[in-house]
């Protein structure tokens, strides 16, 4: 204790400040995010689990435990299964299109050309615009009277003067319409993610493939796509989660109609639970999304991990 060494060390032995203690600092910096997630994600999630097992309705403050009754009713309901099918069609078709178009766009933007920044900006625009504003714009594009699509088709002579396609009013056209808007909305994100993946491939690899005599398709299918596969799967994962849980497009464009032909699980849960007043069933429907999404996330992350290369 009395050695000169400890005497010399004494002045240094003060309380370390918060910025010096990495563990404590880390916890403090994570705290706002954790509070946010707990309040805005965790709490509603637990609440919806609780509601789904009760007889909750709007305005009913006296909850009673109802077991799995809500779920039993849902699976016997044709509208639910129809919405489930619509959700899958909506998600799969739009995401297949997003990944393919995103890859093509990314490859086009990867090359240098004049005005590249402008094209990049224009492509990113749908992602930057608020989803509801963009969708309202589409509402006008699909309007039966003012539809610019019909006007263009007529001007090109593709449809006759007496044909009036009602984009949001005919079941098959309505589904095409919401897919179109979803592709329009998610394409920029996928393109930017895939573009980042493409930029990560060293030029030498492309040069080597050229030297080895690989043509366009061999280069694309054997070198290019396998190398961006992990990052394409991340783009796909985002797309699936966003599309699966999205109800704004459906809500603004079709309200699930006509005849529930565009009703998806997220919109059905909302219409059942809030305007319909049956909170318990709405909660139960929305919970059906959860295990499906967990499965998709685990599957895609596993594949991405396996495909990862460096």
């Amino acid at each position, binding site marked *: 204790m009395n050695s000169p060494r400890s005497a010399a060390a004494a002045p240094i032995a003060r309380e370390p400040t918060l910025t010096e203690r990495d563990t404590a600092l880390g916890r403090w910096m994570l705290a706002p995010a954790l509070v946010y997630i707990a309040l805005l994600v965790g709490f509603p999630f637990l609440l919806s689990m609780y509601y789904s097992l009760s007889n909750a309705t709007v305005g009913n403050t006296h909850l009673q435990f109802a077991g799995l009754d809500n779920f039993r009713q849902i699976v016997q309901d044709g509208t639910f299964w129809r919405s489930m099918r619509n959700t899958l069609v909506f998600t799969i078709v739009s995401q297949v299109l997003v990944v393919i178009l995103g890859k093509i766009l990314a490859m086009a933007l990867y090359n240098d050309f004049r005005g590249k920044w402008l094209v990049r900006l224009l492509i990113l625009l749908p992602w930057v615009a608020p989803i509801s504003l963009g969708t309202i714009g589409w509402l006008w594009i699909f309007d039966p009277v003012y539809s610019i699509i019909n006007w263009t088709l007529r001007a090109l002579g593709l449809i006759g003067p007496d044909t009036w396609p009602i984009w949001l009013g005919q079941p098959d056209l309505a589904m095409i319409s919401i897919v179109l808007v979803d592709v329009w909305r998610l394409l920029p994100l996928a393109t930017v993610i895939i573009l980042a993946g493409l930029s990560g491939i*060293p030029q*030498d*690899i492309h*040069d*080597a*493939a*050229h*030297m*080895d*005599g*690989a*043509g366009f398709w*061999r280069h694309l299918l*054997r*070198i290019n796509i*396998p*190398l961006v596969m992990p990052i394409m799967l991340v783009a796909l994962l985002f797309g699936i989660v966003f599309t699966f849980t999205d109800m704004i497009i459906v809500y603004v464009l079709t309200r699930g109609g006509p005849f529930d032909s565009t009703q998806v699980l997220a919109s059905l849960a909302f219409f059942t639970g809030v305007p319909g007043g049956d909170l318990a069933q709405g909660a139960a429907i929305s919970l059906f999304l959860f295990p499906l999404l967990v499965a998709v996330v685990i599957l895609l992350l596993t594949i991405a991990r396996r*495909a990862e*290369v*460096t």
Partner: protein
Amino acid sequence: MAIVETRALTKRFDGSNAVDGIDLTVGEAEFLVLLGPSGSGKTTLLRMIAGLEIPTSGDILVDGRNVTNLSPGARNMAMVFQSYALYPHLSVFRNIAFPLQAQHMRKDEIAQKVNWAANMFGIGQLLQRKPRQLSGGERQRVALARAVVREPAVFLLDEPLSNLDAKLRIAARDELQQFQRRLATTTIYVTHDQIEALGLGDRIAILDHGAIHQLGTPRQVYEEPADTFVATFIGAPPMNLVEREGQPIMGFRPEHFLPPQAYASASEPLQTLPFHITRIENLGSDRLLYGTLASPMPAVKVISRIPGTVDATLSADEDHSFVVRQRDLHYFDPKTGLRIGRQP
């Protein structure tokens, strides 16, 4: 096996010529080294020959056939990159097989060829591994095997050894030369390392600012440098140059600039040069003496490299009379920098 020619080959980048009208002929089975500092245009020249870079003007010929407009894959040339550029998602076997698959070769034939190439480089036991599981030396061999496997007419090598550590590099250099001799394939090799160039090349083309300063055997470029650039670029430390008013530039190599006892037994005419030593580095096998020439010579900085076999007691801050044999003196035109023979 092929003869590769470039005719007035030029590449313009952003208003200046990266490669400036180069005429070059690489002979059958020759090992030609393109040597130059970074930015000299050596890699651009190689990439134009490969077809990866489109020339601004000029032609590339292989065995007299103009290939300037052919795609890289159609030129029957194989390239080894500095980074090796192995396909990271493919096994070693599939990496080596890739150029053969692109030729639509039969599967059994591919397997046979891949094994042949892998055995040549001693990587037969690594075929199922991925590139990331290999060491630097092993990756380099895979890159070489991938280049060799389709038996191309020309090998193009872009600094293939620079990512190896020093010890491995010496062994790899030896192997590289052996396999090139065995396959007798025309080879163009880019490097900025003069030891590699002198050790490997049948001939060396020394480039700077997109032009060839000298094309010759390692002996020629070392012993008869064509100009002051080559003289100072080749040799480590570089040749000492002494500029004198109204006279040609005089050059001599550090290892020829020695204390008189080193030439005690020589009966040749010697040039004596007064030398003020400022600093000594002892490198074990050699000593490097840094200093300046003294009057009547201009006070230019010069270096002497004394082999360990020469016994001389020397220390810093001393004045000595060092000597160079007359035949080891080089002279260059002070205006153009071009060599003007040994005698002034």
